[in-house]
């Protein structure tokens, strides 16, 4: 009797947390949706901002959408290319004491707020003689997502069943061939979601690019000039006292969310397709 009562209580608690979660998500989406939808227009999405855009003038935020896509995809690509060999090394080659040291260290990096990366990026930028630019933003953002993508890849490699290792090696594969020919295929779906999660993290991060990527109204045409980006557009728009302008911040957020949702749907689709094959 006592046990049944307790179980009911716990189930109730679970349902309560579900309710809170649903309420939060629902109110987040609806408030942004309803506040932003009236400002969303073709012009808003697909045109360049006019000179007075941040004071209520016409135009849109197309360059920042492109800027954000370029920033997020390039930084994810760099972080991925950097973490793939390292994750193979720590999960298949090095001694576990060393691997665990690297893992702890990377977890530490992951805990550092992105504004600190921003400052560090700024420091490197000055050291290299760069101005605030697309390149500096990409480099800094890749620092931000590197721990995330490295640890996901590492987890994926570690979760490959030991028997797959035995089976591969017993066929006469070298360790490297095993990693490249068998393991990469085995972890492909997970790898894809790791890439997309990191892309999602990168596209939403504002603090790291605040000093480094700079701000501009133009499309990202050069690696060495500042670029526009969605999170900073949201920031600048929302800072405006003019309601007409701060409303646009919701529309920009809506676009940001739409990109994130789109990415997550695509990643699941592709993941399923690869897995089903």
């Amino acid at each position: 009797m006592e046990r049944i009562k307790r179980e009911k209580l716990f189930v109730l608690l679970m349902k309560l947390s579900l309710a809170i979660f649903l309420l939060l998500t629902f109110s987040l989406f609806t408030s942004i949706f309803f506040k932003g939808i009236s400002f969303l227009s073709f012009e808003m999405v697909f045109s360049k901002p006019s000179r007075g855009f941040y004071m209520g003038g016409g135009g849109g935020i197309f360059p920042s959408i492109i800027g954000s896509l370029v920033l997020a995809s390039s930084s994810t690509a760099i972080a991925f290319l950097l973490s793939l060999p390292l994750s193979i090394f720590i999960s298949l080659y090095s001694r576990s004491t060393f691997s665990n040291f690297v893992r702890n260290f990377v977890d530490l990096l992951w805990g550092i707020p992105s504004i600190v990366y921003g400052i560090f990026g700024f420091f490197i930028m000055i050291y290299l003689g760069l101005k605030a630019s697309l390149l500096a933003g990409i480099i800094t953002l890749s620092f931000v997502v590197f721990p995330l993508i490295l640890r996901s890849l590492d987890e994926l490699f570690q979760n490959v069943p030991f028997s797959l290792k035995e089976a591969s090696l017993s066929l006469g594969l070298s360790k490297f061939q095993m990693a490249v020919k068998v393991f990469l295929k085995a972890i492909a779906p997970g790898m894809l979601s790791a890439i997309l999660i990191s892309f999602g993290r990168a596209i939403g991060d504002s603090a790291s690019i605040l000093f480094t990527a700079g701000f501009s109204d133009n499309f990202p045409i050069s690696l060495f000039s500042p670029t526009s980006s969605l999170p900073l557009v949201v920031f600048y728009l929302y800072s405006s006292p003019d309601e007409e302008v701060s409303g646009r911040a919701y529309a920009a957020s809506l676009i940001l969310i739409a990109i994130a949702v789109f990415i997550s749907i695509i990643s699941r689709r592709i993941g399923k397709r690869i897995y089903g094959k």
Partner: protein
Amino acid sequence: MVNEHIEIRNFSVCYGKECALKNVSLKIPNNAITVILGPSGCGKSTLLKSLNRLIDEVEDVRVEGEIIVDGKNIYDKDVKLPELRKKMGLLLQKPQVLPFSIYKNVIFGPKLNGIKDKKKLREMAQKYLTMAHLWEEVKDRIYEPAHKLSIGQQQRLCLARGLAVEPEILLCDEPTSALDPLSSKKVEETLLELKKDYTIILVTHILRQAKRLGDFIAFFYLGELVEFAPAKEFFENPKDERTRAYIKGEIS
């Protein structure tokens, strides 16, 4: 017992202070099934994994003694592991297919060995799937993913994949323990057919399986080789007290 291309000499494997194998010496006859028999934790699997040096993948393992394969100690420094492992097919307890199609699983080894001709690869796939008694069941769907097969079929696929590397020795680590009776029977039949061409080492803890398949039995207990004899002699006239107890089912 004329030819032995595997000879184990004073071989020990220790993890820290614990030794899984203690000073084992054993000659494994060619073209026969040698059963490594014993209760779990007696070092059977360790021995099997020492033969193709998968034991190297375990951290902090200490190996002493020699294993001579084709006249060479496989623990010598200049031994190339991929070459060594190609000599030995491995069948695991739970079948582990590669994350590819059935066809690609079988031709994985041959392709690795540089065979590129599509027609030849096709022929090889059919040959080895037939040898493993799987061809008839999968011939219409060899391009489907291997993980869609039943566990029993997967194990036979693993056997075909191993055979396609053209090894001389087959190492089987309780290969039927995860299978249904029908698949087990097929795997056992295949092993019996294969022994005329291969040296087979089969690890098992099932007495009846050892009786059905074994030509020679090596009985291990707590890391020691207790008794090694031709199967008939082993079961009818066991010499050691512990062997007798195990056969009677008193220790397990």
